[in-house]
């Protein structure tokens, strides 16, 4: 997994609440058997018209945001399905961090498995960053995972929380499966005991 340490870049503003996974990557793109290549279809139905032409108004089609690395989003971002295609599509487009007041649970977890950082901040701080994001290329937002801070374009520093284990994995690009397999004897022991306690499982 790719490491996440620091990230500085343009942030795209998406103030809409309840942006769901069907919006992030519509189902017709879930038929792939690969992880890569989904960036061009990120937000497909908001981004392109029926003929497949770009809708100029849509934020990621605007010149300032074509290389956005961060999204500032409304409440409850990523609600809906468990499709990991949502973070894959965001990452493939180049978005490595998303900042909102809240995230849907499965989406939030899926981000970390892909070296991406979802950040929860209180409303007033998200508002400040949303204003920054609206300034396009004139405002860069900086994220530092080690110190758990987001710095707005004019130097306001906001602290965010992250689970220590998740942070450790992200900073070092650690693969969960490898880590868990180090505990294989513990799993073996549990399985043995459980098969006696609940043999019908």
């Amino acid at each position, binding site marked *: 997994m790719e490491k996440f340490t620091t990230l500085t870049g343009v942030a795209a503003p998406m103030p809409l609440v*309840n942006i769901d996974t069907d919006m992030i990557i519509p189902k017709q793109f879930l038929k792939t*058997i690969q992880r890569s290549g989904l960036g061009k279809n990120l937000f497909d139905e908001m981004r392109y018209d029926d003929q497949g032409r770009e809708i100029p108004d849509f934020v990621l089609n605007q010149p300032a945001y074509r290389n956005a690395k961060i999204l500032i989003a409304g409440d409850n971002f990523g609600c809906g399905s468990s499709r990991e295609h949502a973070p894959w599509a965001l990452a493939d487009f180049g978005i490595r961090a998303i900042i909102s007041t809240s995230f849907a649970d499965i989406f939030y977890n899926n981000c970390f*498995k892909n070296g991406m950082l979802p950040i929860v901040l209180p409303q007033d701080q998200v508002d400040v960053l949303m204003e920054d994001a609206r300034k396009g290329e004139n405002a860069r937002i900086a994220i530092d995972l080690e110190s758990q801070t987001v710095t707005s374009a004019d130097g306001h520093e906001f602290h965010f929380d992250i*689970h220590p284990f998740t942070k450790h994995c992200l900073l070092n690009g650690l693969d969960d499966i490898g880590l868990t397999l180090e505990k294989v004897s513990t799993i073996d022991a549990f399985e043995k005991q459980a098969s006696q306690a609940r043999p*019908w499982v």
Partner: protein
Amino acid sequence: MPKTLYDKIWDAHLVHEDADGTALLYIDRHLVHEVTSPQAFEGLRMAGRKVRAPEKTIAVPDHNVPTTPDREHGIENEESRIQVEALDSNAREFGVHYYPVNDVRQGIVHIVGPEQGWTLPGMTVVCGDSHTATHGAFGALAHGIGTSEVEHVLATQTLIQKKSKNMKVEITGSLPPGVTAKDITLSVIGATGTAGGTGHVIEYCGQAIEELSMEGRMTVCNMAIEGGARAGLIAPDEKTFAYVKGRPHAPKGAQWEAALEWWKTLKSDEGAHWDKVVTLKAEDIAPVVTWGTSPEDVLPITDVVPDPESFSGGKVEAARRALDYMGLKAGTRLKDIEIDTVFIGSCTNGRIEDLRAAAEILKGRKIAVKRAMIVPGSGLVRAQAEEEGLAQIFIDAGFEWRLAGCSMCLAMNPDQLAPGERCAATSNRNFEGRQGRGGRTHLMSPAMAAAAAVTGRLTDIREMMAETA
């Protein structure tokens, strides 16, 4: 210390816990479908790993499969076919239980699991699918996971988890006539919002929940995810045990007795701690429909389309956008909204009881919409509906009688709405484009969807019941 049901299942599956609360949880059942698993199997292959517990892993294709009777001749859409073929070969290569497309037991993964007795009380159940919450109806801790986690479970039979908070949703009293499990679950989301359960596992309880059949309980838990919760749970009782008994993979003989003894302890203790409690009175719940593009956009059928300005914060803009997308004006009576298509099916409402409820309304009536389809949740549900004579009622009314699959719930197969088409649907999501680009979805119960098919508009089922009586 008194424990909740969630606490008890959690404790029984805890393999390891770090000082910082990161836990490794053992997984009893891993359900797999074709859309979220190919990358996970590929990951295993690349790392030279095996499936740790193939006997606890169950695969079935459902999202992509055509539901037309000609599907035995193969899947026309190339990408869909490749995805289903990938599941086929992965299931065989890794030796997991498998129900291929043309097996009569094939169906939507969340319907097949309980039907075959794979889902049992007190288990941990995961699937790369958010509606895994359905299995919580058995008192199993069941939730959706992403593809990286699917790979993790395949390789280790465990999942890295942090414990959620405990939330209790109590529905007191009895449901009035015409009001169903679907109305309960939608009304709860209407009351708490789509983020109301975030960070929590919900236990549904109260008289109205106890009075529901297992099918109804599955409908309630299915939509826990739409309320933002990690999982929904209902404590197992005699109804649960009766449903499970005799199913192909349920325990038998002495094992059944041992299991039963443990299952009977699976309830929240008196005095257990709840981080959040929501109580609704069953008598206050009406038949509901959704008007917008989020499952929280729900109102009693007797109401009108709301004014976006009546909301606050970011919801004002979201409601404006929703009305625009749905082609609706504030103040329109919900009962005056005309529909083109009716879809009855999905893991929310594709079980036999749902079909019976629809048939009761459709008996001797004809549809007044362009298109109406019934897609049973599994091949066995389909067979049973045919045996009970329900299929003939649907066909006589003008419905298409389909084979099992997810179908127009998410329209990954050819069953899709055209842009602007309006659908009364028994599924669980009314997101923009969910049932086809530009398609407009109103969520409701099977009886309400059947009533809408007959009148051609959103309809209060209670009025139709009065007519029938």
